[in-house]
């Protein structure tokens, strides 16, 4: 019931963004598709090109389409910054809006073209015969006759866009998808269900209202059209109200999180702490590992927690391992010089990549380290999260120990542990701060050659806030304040299957631990 209450509390924020995003994308899509379809209906060449383009867009998996817009916009933003002295936010609303706009085009294009080309030639002949100009024929005869079919296309587009808008969450745009992504990550099925039902509910309501408008157009019933428009205005108005009600006031600080439980917990801790210090905060949850740093450097985000080893290898392209303290110092210098990003400090614990096996299996094979593992690797299956196999750390480990596995599989982080316990894989790329290592009694393999760097949790602040003393003061008490056992306990509260807590609840517990 707790989860439901939390989900309900988030609804005004998530729903208002979801509606704003969907309605904007649909409006922009119509603004492009309708004129394009009208022109294309008269030109065979353009018709083929437009429908072909829209169909190709449709075949791109929607999540990939959304994700693609971030780097594209980032490059454009950097270009406008260099050329004209202004940039724009490449994360969040804009990439989601553009991707969804493209996504909305096919049904509108197809229906409009089909409807216009399907009008009886005798009617078009009559329009000319009574002395209509081509434009008058289009607006007074052809479009009104095509309207019900066009409206059906708009309905399809609306349902697609509202459904697909849930995928805006990973590109940093709050939507009803936040429920689904957070819920999946933390195995909080109440959240997932809440997200699915609310998005579907919204789609159904909008679809019914548009159906009413479609009937109104077909039956020439002004009452129906008026009722539909009023209904749409009410739904959109009520959904967007919280956004305007909360607008204004102090500048908001944007907190980013990556897509795993520890990050959600720490995101809540950051939000609570900044909120207590009088900052208004917004969240960009579930971001990809490299996207999140780029976003911070571009001021799309203001604060988030990263891990020293990640910055060390993927940003600084270093493969040496000079020790925890030296790595932190060098990262701090590098951040300031290269990006103007401030490293506030380490939180006090490491969340390192750690290769883990079931202890019975490790015992049976006499495997204690990655060096031992190399002997058996060709007969073993390894499971990793979505990132590990493409990260430099993996290449470093493979190179250092000459590892080659029989099978390599990728899992969502939670399922990876299940797969290991169930024996589907023999080794996994675990995380050292994960509470489940202790819970399942997993054997963490030693790294005698030091191929893996340290992974101190570090607090990074965007260039815009790098010298914001109030913000830095609010964050300072977190530095060195969280021990490994404490974060492991907090993580386990969220990860364990029984007596599961939400990230927010775990964050509250962690805050009392920090205060002690």
């Amino acid at each position, binding site marked *: 019931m707790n989860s439901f209450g939390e989900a309900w509390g988030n609804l005004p924020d998530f729903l208002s963004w979801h509606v704003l995003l969907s309605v904007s994308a649909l409006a922009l899509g119509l603004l492009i598709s309708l004129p394009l379809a009208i022109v294309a209906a008269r030109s065979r060449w353009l018709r083929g090109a437009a429908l072909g383009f829209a169909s190709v867009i449709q075949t791109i998996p929607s999540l990939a389409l959304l994700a693609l817009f971030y780097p594209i916009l980032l490059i454009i933003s950097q270009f406008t910054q260099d050329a004209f002295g202004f940039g724009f936010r490449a994360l969040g609303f804009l990439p989601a809006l553009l991707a969804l706009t493209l996504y909305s085009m096919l049904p509108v294009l197809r229906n409009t073209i089909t409807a216009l080309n399907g009008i009886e030639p*005798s*009617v078009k*002949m*009559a329009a*000319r015969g*009574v002395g209509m*100009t081509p434009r008058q024929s289009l607006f007074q005869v052809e479009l009104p006759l095509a309207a019900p079919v066009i409206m059906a296309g708009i309905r399809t587009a609306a349902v697609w866009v509202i459904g697909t808008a849930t995928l805006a969450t990973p590109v940093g745009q709050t939507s009803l998808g936040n429920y689904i992504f957070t819920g999946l990550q933390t195995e909080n099925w109440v959240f997932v269900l809440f997200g699915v039902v609310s998005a579907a509910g919204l789609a159904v309501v909008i679809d019914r209202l548009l159906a009413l408008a479609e009937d109104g157009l077909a039956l020439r019933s002004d009452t129906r059209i008026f009722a539909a428009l009023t209904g749409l205005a009410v739904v959109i108005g009520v959904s967007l109200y919280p956004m305007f009600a909360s607008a204004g006031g102090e500048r908001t600080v944007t907190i980013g999180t990556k897509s795993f439980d520890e990050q959600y917990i720490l995101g809540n801790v950051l939000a609570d702490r900044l909120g207590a210090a009088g900052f208004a905060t917004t969240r960009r949850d579930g971001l990809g590992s490299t996207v999140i740093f780029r976003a911070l450097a571009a001021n799309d985000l203001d604060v988030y927690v990263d891990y020293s080893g990640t910055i060390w290898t993927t940003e600084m392209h270093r493969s040496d391992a000079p020790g925890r303290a030296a790595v932190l110092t060098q990262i701090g210098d590098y951040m300031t010089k290269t990006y103007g990003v401030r490293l506030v400090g380490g939180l006090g614990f490491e969340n390192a990549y750690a290769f883990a096996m079931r202890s019975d299996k490790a015992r049976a094979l006499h495997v204690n380290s990655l060096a031992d593992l190399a002997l058996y690797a060709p007969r073993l299956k390894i499971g990793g999260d979505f990132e590990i196999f493409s990260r430099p750390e993996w290449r470093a480990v493979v190179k250092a120990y000459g590892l080659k596995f029989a099978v390599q599989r990728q899992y969502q982080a939670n399922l990876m542990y299940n797969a290991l316990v169930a024996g589907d894989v023999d080794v996994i790329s675990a995380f050292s701060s994960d509470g489940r290592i202790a819970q399942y009694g997993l054997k963490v393999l030693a790294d005698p050659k030091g191929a893996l760097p340290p992974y101190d949790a570090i607090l990074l602040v965007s260039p815009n806030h790098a010298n914001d003393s109030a913000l830095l003061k609010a964050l300072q008490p977190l530095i060195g304040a969280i021990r490994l056992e404490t974060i492991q306990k907090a993580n386990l509260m969220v990860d364990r299957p029984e007596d599961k807590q939400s990230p927010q609840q775990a964050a509250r517990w962690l805050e009392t631990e920090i205060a002690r």
Partner: protein
Amino acid sequence: MIELRGITKAYADGGVPAVRTLDLTISDGEFLVLIGESGSGKTTTLNMINRLIEPTAGVIRVDSEDVLAIDPVNLRRRMGYVFQGAGLFPHLTVAENIAVTPRLLGWPREQIDARVDELLNLVRLDPAQYRRRLPRELSGGQQQRVALARALAAKPKIMLMDEPFGALDPLIRDDLAEDYRQIHNSLGLTTIFVTHDMTEAMLLGDRIAVMKDGALIQVGTPNELLTHPADDFVKALVDTPKKRTRRLAQVLAAAP
């Protein structure tokens, strides 16, 4: 007066021209019927007069004004146009259909409303009953009456009609044709009427223009065509109604 001088319509694909150097003069108040088999170029000729089809050569003058030099849209608003299958706008009511051209011309609302009622009475449809109907709620004959009213709405002096009653039942068809001939007379219209039915042509037309393969073969009153057909083709055309009349007379004579 409508004058067609050397009118030709050739298509870009280089085939036989649809209409070849055609000369024809229609005087004011005249009811001229264009007749010919399908593909003879009669519809093409008609459609060139209001420039639904652009001639490739020749001159068309209406009251000495060169039609090819003026805006075709304005030209069409000055002429009434009725074709087979009515072509009523399915999303508009009977009244709205009839009001189209006056509305395009910017007539005041009260004047349009009055004109709609006047025209519905003229084509013998009760305004109170039919004004608000949609075309799909009308029979074929009623639809064609509305199409006729629509063509007459902006008070044109010239009416172009392309087999307007061709798709109707014979009874309704004769009814409508007779009604229209009366409207033509009472309003002093100039009508060019395309058909392939010689009986209809002879009953309606002041003069008949016979076309074959894009060329004009003979123009004359029904009587002239009957008595002095220009060639075997015209003779065969006028023989049909003659034979039918004779046979009908025999049938009637045999009746008790």
